[in-house]
């Protein structure tokens, strides 16, 4: 059996263009458990990245004891990656779980019963609503809850309380995907499909280290690469990732300069006459704006600004311009960097220029990071109006008011919703006095952690934290609520390519832990949130009621779930939205006829100026009359806000590793994954290491204007002049707080965000580095990923051994 720590992507099953990706069923069972011992297999999908691989959870004696990929699932064809194999169940079935509510007494968190904990929340909530009104309340949620839970939260926030202060950590991972799709096509919703990998003849990955973030999706690409007619691959990434190693063209741009590169690519495609003029004429608007913006960006100008070779810019553009079927994917290298929305819109623009949308292989995947980010956006737990409705469109607001039986005035729609960083700013200033954080860990994942900790610790702030574990964030809470995890509750979620899965409850939650849905419903009941007719606002008894309510809310909107049901999802497995009377089996690709969601009555937004974020507004939008045509939106390039200086001469960028998810609350508790990447490290190029007199594993201090971290150095393949740090490592397993040993990557990042998507900038900052001490061995960075040593063989290889062996069964 293969060691799936050493072999992240598993055995190759090559296939050719237009073929079916062969099935390979991956299974991992707990030590000493054989297949025959398993009592039940419960249908679900993996919740450790946005890929949403279909799986069955193995249950024995009421406990989760393993996992198996589902052969017939459209997403993974049976495969699972290391996180799914090892962390999905071990990350949950763990003795560290919170099992009882905690409340703060005399400065300490002590055990309490649910009635006490919820009673305190309702009491404080009611008092603040009376004293200061709905704007005193903020909610910060996750990319890891189920659809039903987000929808409950969105309804109680908008129609129960009436606060615009609601966001998810999806703001950190996927807000730019939504923003760029809205600006270009009128509404969120992924145009492409995973089947585009099977059909394409070129793949462009923009700031998307797919090999580590969605390992099973990358296995699909690897199988095409190993097949008879390999697609050409272009990679934009400052690191020498696994993707870069397979690329025909690798563009290692200077962090913060993506937009300049994109302008150059667009310019080349236009200049060489690779534009589908009929498509542009028939299905787009504002081509002239685009031409003006890209005009100065010759390949030489790009080379100068981005630090890549002009010839490579030409080659990449040529691949885009001359391939028949191009698939593009975009992720954090663009979303978390400077001018995020404008850069991502340029990817959309390239596809519009070539008319490459809505046809097999001509796909666009503005990726999500977290597993249920898509649902957070659909349901409005990111503050948006549910069902991709437009807060500036009074008719859309009325629809929701009718659906929920409340006054239109109740629903906050006077300005765009409050994004995460602004919510925390209001908490800092004291105007938000009640903050409810569910299933996320801002004390590690938000930028500028020293400031974050100050805000969370404010005594005036009443902080509720709902989670599986006592996270770094939970330690600051006034009330901690133990939540049920994946496998312990039922609900649906939707992956990147709009595939909806039902995840059934397999086991009971530990102790008194409750599902997030039950907690939100309990709060709504205690607060007496009601419709105008006096009946309860949320009268659902369980997830299926919530799903049905959501189906009604989504009816007629781009994310239409009205044709689905729990029974259908149980029977058929993953189904893509829209699924309705017109498309009873779901729809593989959007915009097949080149008609977009931009009609003024239908669109999710009237759009923004991409430099400032100024809203276009209904009048100007109607005057433009896009009426189903896509919009070429762009902005001029400007340099990032913080450039290297004498004091801070290096660029700083953060990212992920294949073995961990988010702040490791689950993956850090899977022994195989933890052993593969047990501790913090930073990466330096060989040239910089030499300059600073640093050897592999030596300890360095990195500081920015915000803070400092100490970590061992991996001499790797990052760009010269750039320091890379993985963002997963916090303090829950090193004593709980940074004290004298800060190590979290976000100690150094800056508080600033994209003007349109409001996604924080994690990928560019200026830092200084000093050697602190000699090391005692190599840095604890994997050798199987982008963090591999620059000099092969200088560091022992990352392996998992017997514990990491998993069964592979080709069909």
């Amino acid at each position: 059996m293969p060691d799936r720590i050493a072999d992240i992507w598993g055995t190759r099953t090559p296939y050719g263009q237009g073929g079916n990706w062969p099935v390979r069923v991956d299974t991992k069972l707990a030590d000493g458990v054989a297949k025959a011992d398993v009592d039940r297999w419960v249908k679900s999908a993996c919740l450790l990245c946005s890929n949403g691989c279909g799986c069955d959870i193995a249950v024995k004696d009421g406990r989760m004891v393993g996992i198996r990929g589902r052969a017939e699932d459209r997403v993974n064809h049976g495969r699972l990656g290391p996180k799914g194999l090892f962390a999905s169940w071990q990350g949950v079935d763990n003795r560290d779980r919170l099992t009882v509510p905690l409340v703060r007494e005399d400065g300490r968190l002590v055990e309490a019963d649910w009635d006490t904990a919820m009673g305190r929340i309702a009491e404080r909530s009611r008092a603040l609503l009376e004293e200061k009104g709905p704007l005193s309340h903020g909610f910060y949620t996750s990319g890891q809850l189920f659809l039903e839970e987000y929808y409950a939260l969105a309804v109680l926030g908008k129609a129960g309380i009436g606060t615009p202060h609601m966001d998810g950590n999806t703001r950190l991972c996927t807000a730019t995907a939504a923003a760029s799709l809205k600006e270009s096509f009128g509404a969120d919703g992924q145009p492409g499909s995973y089947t585009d990998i099977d059909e394409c003849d070129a793949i462009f990955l923009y700031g998307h280290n797919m090999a580590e973030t969605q390992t099973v999706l990358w296995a699909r690409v690897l199988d095409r690469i190993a097949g008879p007619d390999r697609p050409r691959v272009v990679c934009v990434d400052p690191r020498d990732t696994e993707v870069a190693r397979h690329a025909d063209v690798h563009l290692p741009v200077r962090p913060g300069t993506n937009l300049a590169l994109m302008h150059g690519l667009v310019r080349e495609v236009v200049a060489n006459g690779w534009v589908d003029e009929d498509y542009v004429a028939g299905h787009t608007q504002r081509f002239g704006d685009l031409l003006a913006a890209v005009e100065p960006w010759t390949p030489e100008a790009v080379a100068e600004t981005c630090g890549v070779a002009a010839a490579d810019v030409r080659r990449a553009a040529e691949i885009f311009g001359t391939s028949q079927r191009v698939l593009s994917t975009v992720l954090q290298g663009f979303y978390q960097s400077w001018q995020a929305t404008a850069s991502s819109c340029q990817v959309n623009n390239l596809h519009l220029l070539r008319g490459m949308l809505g046809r097999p292989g001509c796909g666009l995947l503005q990726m999500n990071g977290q597993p249920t980010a898509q649902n957070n956006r659909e349901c409005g737990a990111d503050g948006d109006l549910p069902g991709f409705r437009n807060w500036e469109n009074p008719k859309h607001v009325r629809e929701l008011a009718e659906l929920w039986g409340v006054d239109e005035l109740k629903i906050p729609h006077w300005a765009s919703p409050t994004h995460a960083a602004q919510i925390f700013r209001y908490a800092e200033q004291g105007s938000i006095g009640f903050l409810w954080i569910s299933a996320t860990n801002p004390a590690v994942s938000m930028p500028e952690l020293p400031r974050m900790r100050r805000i969370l610790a404010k005594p005036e702030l009443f902080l509720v934290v709902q989670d599986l574990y006592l996270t770094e964030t939970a330690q600051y809470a006034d009330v901690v609520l133990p939540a049920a995890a994946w496998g312990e509750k039922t609900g649906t979620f939707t992956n990147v390519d709009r595939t909806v899965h039902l995840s059934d409850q397999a086991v009971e939650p530990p102790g008194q832990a409750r599902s997030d849905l039950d907690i939100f419903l309990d709060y709504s009941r205690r607060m007496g949130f009601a419709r105008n007719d006096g009946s309860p606002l949320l009268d659902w008894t369980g997830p299926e009621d919530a799903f049905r309510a959501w189906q009604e809310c989504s009816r007629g909107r781009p994310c239409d779930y009205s044709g689905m049901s729990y029974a259908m999802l149980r029977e058929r497995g993953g189904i893509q939205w829209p699924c309705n009377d017109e498309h009873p089996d779901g729809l593989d690709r959007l915009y097949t006829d080149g008609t977009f969601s931009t009609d003024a009555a239908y669109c999710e937004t009237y759009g923004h100026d991409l430099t400032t974020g100024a809203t276009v507004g209904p009048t100007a939008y109607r005057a433009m009359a896009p009426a189903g045509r896509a919009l070429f939106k762009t902005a001029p390039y400007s340099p990032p806000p913080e450039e290297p200086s004498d004091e801070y001469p290096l660029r700083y960028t953060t990212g992920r590793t294949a073995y961990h998810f988010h702040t490791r609350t689950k993956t850090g508790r899977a022994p195989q994954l933890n052993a593969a990447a047990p501790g913090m490290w930073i990466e330096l190029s060989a040239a910089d290491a030499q300059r600073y007199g640093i050897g592999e594993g030596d300890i360095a201090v990195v500081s920015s204007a915000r803070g400092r971290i100490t970590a061992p150095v991996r001499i790797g393949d990052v760009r010269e002049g750039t320091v890379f740090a993985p963002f997963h490592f916090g303090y829950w397993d090193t004593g709980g707080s940074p004290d004298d040993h800060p190590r979290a990557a976000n100690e150094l990042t800056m508080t600033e965000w994209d003007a349109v998507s409001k996604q924080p900038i994690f990928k560019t900052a200026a830092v200084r580095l000093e050697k602190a001490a000699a090391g005692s061995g190599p840095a604890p960075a994997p050798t199987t990923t982008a963090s591999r040593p620059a000099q092969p063989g200088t560091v022992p290889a990352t392996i998992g051994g017997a514990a990491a062996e998993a069964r592979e069964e080709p069909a």
Partner: protein
Amino acid sequence: MKLPVYLGLLHQSEATLAESYRQVAEGHGEEPDVHFLCLTLARQCDAHQDALAPIIGRYGECTEDDEPERLHHEGLSKTRSGPVGLLRDLQDLYLMANLVDITWTMVKQAAQGLQDAELLDVIARCDGETEVQLHWLKTRMKQAAPQALIAAS
């Protein structure tokens, strides 16, 4: 011809606006979006003044007091603090940017009358940016107003 008076007014009010953006950026560093964007917009105002320079070279500009004093707008004396202070400062910027915007409009009318293609080209490049500045200020104020006026203490 009184166009030089208006060119002077335009030049002066772009300079005042640039200066005020920089002041607000400085005074509201705790609001990073306001901080960085105001610096960007200040540079935009600088560029507008540079673009006007050859036009002023041809027509001259009048900065003397032979026109009513009130044509010239005072910049911000100093920035305010707190949520309402931010709102008030943005509102002052909004008023100043409006002066700039309407002055561009008047200069454009004159440029059309004069059939001055070079000036019209400058206006086409700059006036749209001023308009976006106004939109941004309004968007940002609309976001900040409820919190500042209701919930902040």
